[in-house]
């Protein structure tokens, strides 16, 4: 697989750059742990007053927090830095160097910059998931695990396609960093099951800024409260959005006029 080979190359370069700042890693670990503490502390306060939140029991919401950190970590590790780099290079014309390379340009711009210390978020997310899995116990069987795997893959593809579409608008709008920032402030809404929000907000979080597919749906899968219709819908939406994003990227590249293009 050329994809993994390329990813490995970028990963190695990233590690080489990052090991010179090892103390940074510790600082980021502390920050991620504090953020996780805030999330779990908030849950503790809420569940001191109720047994369930919109039908979600404490252990299930801890699962949701785990997914939130895991997906947030993946976005912060690959998607966000790469897409920001993309809008920057459209802006200053350095995208030329990518387009002249013999690899698929969409693939290259999707993994060309990694923010390695976000691995701490991924690690913490997996740890939280492991703990919550142990607490959910035998309620999580092969079926739930499979639903989770499919849901999180679909969610990842949806989020990636969404970011790529937004970043691709840079070919026309040039300055789109601000649009990208909106995602981060809205992502926080995903720390709670979208089912508790009023209809208009739930719609926005599902289709305008697809946080629901990335966090709520996989967590539902693991908690065994996902029906197959939703899962199939998430899969179909992922395929559709990916195709649209790829087509849009192609149009964008054709529209691109860099310094030497």
């Amino acid at each position, binding site marked *: 697989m050329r994809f993994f080979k390329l990813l490995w190359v970028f990963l190695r370069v990233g590690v080489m750059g990052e090991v010179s700042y090892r103390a940074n890693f510790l600082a980021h670990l*502390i920050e991620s742990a504090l953020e996780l503490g805030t999330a779990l502390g*908030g849950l503790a306060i809420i569940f001191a007053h109720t047994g369930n939140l919109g039908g979600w029991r404490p252990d299930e919401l801890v699962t949701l927090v785990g997914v939130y950190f895991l997906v947030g970590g993946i976005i912060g590790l690959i998607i966000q830095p790469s897409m920001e780099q993309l809008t920057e290079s459209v802006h200053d014309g350095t995208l030329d160097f990518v387009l002249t390379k013999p690899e698929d340009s969409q693939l290259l711009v999707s993994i060309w910059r990694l923010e390695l210390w976000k691995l701490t978020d991924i690690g913490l997310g997996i740890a939280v998931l492991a703990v919550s899995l142990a607490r959910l116990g035998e309620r999580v069987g092969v079926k739930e695990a499979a639903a989770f795997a499919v849901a999180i893959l679909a969610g990842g593809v949806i989020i990636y396609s969404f970011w790529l579409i937004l970043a691709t608008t840079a070919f026309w709008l040039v300055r789109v960093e601000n649009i990208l920032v909106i995602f981060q*402030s*809205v992502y*926080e809404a995903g720390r709670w099951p979208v089912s508790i929000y009023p209809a208009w907000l739930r719609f926005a979080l599902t289709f305008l800024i697809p946080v629901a597919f990335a966090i709520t749906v996989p967590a539902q899968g693991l908690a065994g409260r996902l029906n197959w219709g939703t899962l199939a819908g998430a899969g179909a939406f992922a395929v559709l959005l990916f195709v649209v994003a790829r087509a849009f990227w192609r149009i964008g590249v054709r529209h691109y006029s860099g310094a030497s293009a």
Partner: protein
Amino acid sequence: MRGRASGLVDLYLQELKTSLAAMLQYRAALGIWLIGSILQPLIYLVVWSTVSGSGGGSVGPYDARDFAAYYIALMIINQVTYTWVMYEFDYRIRQGTFSTALLRPVHPIHTDIADNIASKIVSLPVMLVAAGAMTLLFHPAFRTTAWAAAVFVPAMILAYGVRFITEWTVALAAFWTTRSSAINQIHFMAVLFFSGQIAPLALLPAPLRIASYILPFRWSVGFPVELILGRLTPGQALTGLAVQAGWLVAGFGLLRLAWRGSVKKYSAVGA
């Protein structure tokens, strides 16, 4: 003495003008930042309304409409007292841009206060529109009394003062460590829990609630919120004003102490 005071007024007016012009240039950035500050109280409003819905209509002294009122008031009051000096200081010290500020004949805190006020002038109208929309959507129950509204004015001014001075002091940590972002994060977390943003302070477990009465965070956000919602007795309100005044004086003392030590520590190129 008069000359110095009027000089300071001139300085504020000028800084306000400059900051306003800069803010209006970066409208998009401001708008996006506002989305975040509207969304966060909205999320907690929904979460707590949901909790009260499944708990037989209310949680402690709050029902769904009380939570709506609480978080709408909190959104506005938090916006008024909000500062971002900590994030800015980190950058200033690392990049050495603070050298110029130190050379000026007035204390750099004045520029920051003017800048902060300018941003509030631009952002508050937007927040009030958001508060209006949320009022239509969530039917909040405001139970303000006349005396509470009157006491609210000095409480707000004190709250702004306490928050600005304490956060400016914490921001000075950037002089001592190049990794002040971890300190900022801890502070941010403390604000979330102890100022009443994650939950109204009455709903916190006892140890946290008691801590919140002592720490400065409640006195810069939670106290004016509870006051304007008519949740405090006159006695509690007056005690609150006294604690606020106490924190203002203590914060001022700490600020002067920390400032003297910090500036000595500063060593940028050219300083």
